[in-house]
């Protein structure tokens, strides 16, 4: 009964074009953001920041990036890990080369470099489609990691090949590096995610978003009505890789602290792909839901049974966890192939009709 569109007539197109045209949605989102900024820092402990919230935010960012490319523009990519690596390594190179440059700006620059790399690897998408394209994006994944692993310049010639986030402050507050507090890193991550989510939301509901979706839904028709497929696809690769690049920088600087190329391996690419499929292709909200599902579910599955008083050998538990994870993925796909975001929407639709069944 509380979720009602009725009575909220949009009298202007402007009103209808707002990010969240429905009052309840708007209020809800604002409340969530305020809560995340003002309340969470006081109630979460290190474990929550470090093991749950920060990875969730980092992966949300990456998931939004991939969702722009795959969910909106329809270009299936398995190279996310590679593009994240570009962001991470480039941010590392820049901050060690220019220690005085503001680290937040470095994140953005790293994203831009990733965008350029994304464009390069997006070029084949003009001719190659679907799973063929997906598999070719693995070339990006493997090549980029190989490069960072092989060329010592990228890891400042450390014999171990491991890069570590050096300490950097912004406005006198230490935001990255081992001594920075998880709470600060969380807030930085949160700010990035909020800002870039808004930007993504703006993009997808405007001209560019529509061209992406047009290419996704039917590329030939899109071209015939005047969309330049090459430009549009490359833009999708660029912006998506930008997001992934920033996510990669966040991954290294705000979450892991140090990494070798393995940290960005193909499993990362797959994880992010799971997120957007489970969350919902072509849905920004879905990116968050998916990121939450994939990062939190394993943690939940590990920690829940002991809390419920089940105890079993740790390996058995881990196997059962994997099985449950796989089964849940299949289950959710069967229940709703369009992802959690769609479930959420159906829920809202039902709520709107409630108490009448249809």
């Amino acid at each position, binding site marked *: 009964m509380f979720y009602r569109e009725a009575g909220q007539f949009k009298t202007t197109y402007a009103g209808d074009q707002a990010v969240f045209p429905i009052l309840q949605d708007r209020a809800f989102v604002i409340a969530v953001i305020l809560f995340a900024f003002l309340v969470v820092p006081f109630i979460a402990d290190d474990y929550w920041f470090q093991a749950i919230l920060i990875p969730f935010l980092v992966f949300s960012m990456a998931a939004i990036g991939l969702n722009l490319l*795959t969910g909106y523009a329809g270009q*299936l990519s398995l190279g996310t890990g590679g593009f994240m690596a570009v962001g991470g390594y480039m941010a590392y190179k820049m901050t060690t080369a220019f220690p005085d440059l503001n680290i937040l700006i470095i994140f953005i620059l790293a994203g831009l470099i990733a965008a350029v790399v994304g464009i390069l690897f997006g070029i*084949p998408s003009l*001719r*190659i*489609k*679907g*799973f*063929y394209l997906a*598999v*070719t994006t*693995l*070339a990006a994944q*493997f*090549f980029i990691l*190989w490069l960072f692993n*092989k060329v010592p310049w990228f890891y400042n010639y450390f014999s171990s090949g491991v890069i570590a986030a050096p300490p950097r402050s912004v406005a006198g507050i230490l935001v990255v590096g081992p001594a920075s507090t998880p709470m600060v890193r969380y807030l930085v991550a949160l700010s990035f995610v909020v800002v870039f989510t808004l930007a993504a939301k703006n993009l997808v509901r405007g001209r560019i978003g529509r061209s992406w979706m047009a290419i996704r839904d039917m590329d*030939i*028709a899109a071209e*015939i009505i005047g969309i330049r497929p090459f430009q549009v696809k490359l833009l999708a690769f660029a912006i998506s890789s930008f997001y992934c690049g920033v996510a990669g920088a966040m991954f290294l600087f705000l979450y892991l602290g140090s990494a070798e190329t393995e940290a960005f391996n*193909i499993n990362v690419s*797959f994880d992010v*792909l*799971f997120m957007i*499929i*489970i969350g919902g*292709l072509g849905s920004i909200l879905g990116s968050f839901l998916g990121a939450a599902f994939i990062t939190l579910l394993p943690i939940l599955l590990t920690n829940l049974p002991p809390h419920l008083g089940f105890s079993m050998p740790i*390996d*058995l538990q881990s*196997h*059962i*966890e*994997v*099985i449950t*994870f*796989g*089964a*849940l*993925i*299949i289950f959710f*796909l*069967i229940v709703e*192939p369009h992802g959690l975001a769609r479930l959420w929407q159906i829920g809202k639709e039902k709520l709107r009709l409630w108490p009448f069944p249809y």
Partner: protein
Amino acid sequence: MEALQAVFVLPFLDMAGEPLFFLEVIIGGLLTGVNYSLVALGFVLIFKASGVFNFSQGIMVLFAALTLVGLMERGVPVWLALVLTVLAMIALAFIVERFMLRFLVNQDEIILFMATIGLAFLLEGVGEIAWGADVKELDIGIPDKSFEVGGILLNEFDLFAAATGTVLVVGLAVFFHKTPIGRALRAVADDHQAALSVGIPLKTIWVVVWSVAGIVALAAGISWGAKSGVQFSLSLIALKALPVLLIGGFTSVPGAIIGGLIIGVGEKIAEIYWGPLVGGAIENWFAYMLALAFLLFRPQGLFGERIIERV
């Protein structure tokens, strides 16, 4: 100038300088290639018959090999273990159809792809619980001695695997192109709903195809497992089969074998003659780049079905 020479001249001089070794590299590449083909074949079967990009193919390879070794470790004779494993793979096909595919008819291919990833997790967990995580030696009695013919080193087991691969490919090619069921499979891949509408029993088709893919996985599992022992990394072999698919085309049985050979030879030559220039270990991405280069000329792979672009 020197760099150019290092890239464009020296490697070829190197090849010409030691022709026997070059031949050995090519033969090694071909034999490896057949092994890639075996894995790729499983993908092709399922993709061709249902449009599903079966991510769990790698795990199926592992699962089949694990079951075989697991049974043998429990004292079951080799032939019986083989039969039982085949039965297990057929059972798996039934289960997959009954609890997964059936509910996902007519969904987007990416959704089906995702579901097979879920399946991969499931099988991984079940496999570990059932057979444990140890590395197991797989020895079904095929000789694997090396011998030299005219200065070229060959390995019996490699030759055996190559022969098996060839037989499988020929058999499957005939199956697809000469039987009505082959036509039905291709119809299903095009349009699930339309296939249903003309009375093609999707369920049966899927069980058949997944069973065959399971058996192919067993063959691949034996061939790879003999080399590395049977253990969980075996499933990663799928990643080596993907560029093969790209070159051969997702829908072509002969393509899988030709693609395998091209990748096998190509990556060996690249690694051995060009790898040292850049520090080696270029095989992995080189295979993908090679495939990519092919695709730029034929976006559906060498033998894949033409991608239909029409309005």
